[in-house]
């Protein structure tokens, strides 16, 4: 087994997914078979290979100058996104009670 039922519950919890109790066995076994499949990669000897994190491994991240963006655009944008938010109060986003 690559993943236990308890681990599945943990991961679901971290991802804020509410899995019904009676679906846990099904998801555990499905995820397990996916993980087992991917696990085959561990069979390759990579002891002499550096991790390849980005596909363009020779390139470095571009930098931008520390200059502010166009203020008019920002203003127009802000009006838009506040209109699209489920709930606002003044210029704030409003969110439900956090935690208990």
């Amino acid at each position, binding site marked *: 087994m690559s993943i236990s039922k308890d681990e599945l519950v*943990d991961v679901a919890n*971290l991802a*804020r997914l509410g899995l019904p109790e009676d679906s846990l066995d099904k998801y555990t076994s499905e995820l397990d078979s996916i993980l087992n499949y991917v696990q085959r990669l561990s069979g390759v000897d990579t002891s002499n290979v550096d991790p390849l*994190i*980005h596909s*363009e491994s020779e*390139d*470095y*991240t*571009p*930098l*931008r*100058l*520390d*200059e*502010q*963006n166009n203020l008019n655009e*920002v203003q127009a*944008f*802000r009006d838009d*996104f*506040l209109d699209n938010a489920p709930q606002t*109060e*003044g*210029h*704030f*986003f*409003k*969110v*439900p*009670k*956090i*935690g*208990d």
Partner: protein
Amino acid sequence: MNSVIEEITKKYEPVIGLEVHAQLKTNTKLFCSCKNEFGGEPNANTCPICLGLPGVLPVLNKTALDYAIKASLALNCTVNPKSKFDRKQYFYPDLPKGYQISQYDQPLASNGFVDLPDGSKVRINRLHMEEDAGKLVHAGAERLHGSAYSLVDLNRAGTPLTEIVTEPDIRTAEQARLYVQELRLILIYCGVCDGNLEEGSMRCDVNISLRPQGTEKFGTRAEIKNVNSFRSIQRAIEYEIERQAEILDEGGEVVQETRLWEENRGCTITMRTKEEANDYRYFPEPDLLPINISSEKIQNIQEELPLLPSKKREIYSQEYKLNEEESFIFVEDLERGSYFDECIKLSNNPKKVAAWVNGPVAAYLKEQRLSYFDTKLSPERLSEVLKLIDDGIVSDSSAKKDLIPDIFTSDLSPIELCDKKGLKQITDESAISGEVEAIVNQFPDQFSELKSGKDKMKSFFVGQAMKRFKGKASPALINKILDKLITK
């Protein structure tokens, strides 16, 4: 150190490490071109990137990177030629993307140290860059608990931070406070952080454990969050030392957990235990390629580093022979310090310059709420005043008393001011030598005592002469004339 802590530390040794988040004072955020400012109308400084909307890409701010490198070098760290960003994932309404872009296993810099004014050294484990989260306002309550809903302001989301982590080298609450004060000064000197603790420009987490004195093995630690002033750093650590000592004394075990410092109640409370510890599931940030820093770039930034506080203290005390208090003031108060530095270039008497800057100059500026470079008393002008005193043209005491406030406000030169106010001392030897001789003749007994080597008599004659000249003759000049008469 209070007596309770003193008693505890006979038995247990506190082991303390600090994590400080310092905001970099760039114009714009770390990964987007939104303005980086404290305050501002809620959500005024936001864009699709810092709001975490789909389909956007972060681009690293060059100045933020330069500032972080500068801070690393000032903290004697090795800047790693290659580092990368990672995603730290958790859900909270102040984090719009659901992850924070931070650095995990390849930080920007590592292995530094800070020398503290008390002579101790605190090693730096690492310095890395990350983005800040937004701010929450909890409606109807001061804290999270009890509020019906929360309001989110994302102006701060995405502003650049450096996280600076020490080794567990700190042993007392005072040393922890000293470290944060020194770190703050270093960052201010480098011009990379404004060091404003009230506005949250620097925020501190404390890791602390106790171990029996004389043992090596670390005890179980607690992490204290929300410690955001010099005073609360010291208070929170002292509280935590007492709390952990009490548990250990009763034969209990300290639980590894994250605790929150409650400033108003003066205590720490459990925030989450190890079991509930966040699992951040870090992984390399796919939206950003690695950071490459050339040795030329490091070299260039190294050369830009200003004189740092510890070096300044050394110069002030060893070269200029200033006392601890004077040098402390010039190092802490940047403006006063740089005014003093300018003045000292024009003088060969640092003690005298220091006495003037910290004395009449500081007093006048404080009273008038003016800054050092805002009055007519430029460093050049102050050096002219000091030269007049050195040359005996005006006495130090009358300059301090009678030239203020005019030297700060008048267009007249110091010498013209002395003229106008009749402060000039007699400096012409021939003008007063006859009078001094007359005094000597008036007190023949005292003079023969002086002649026979009773030096104390000198002040008697100087006093007599000063009386005669109503304080306008320079004592140095009278001394000189007396010396001539003695050897005659």
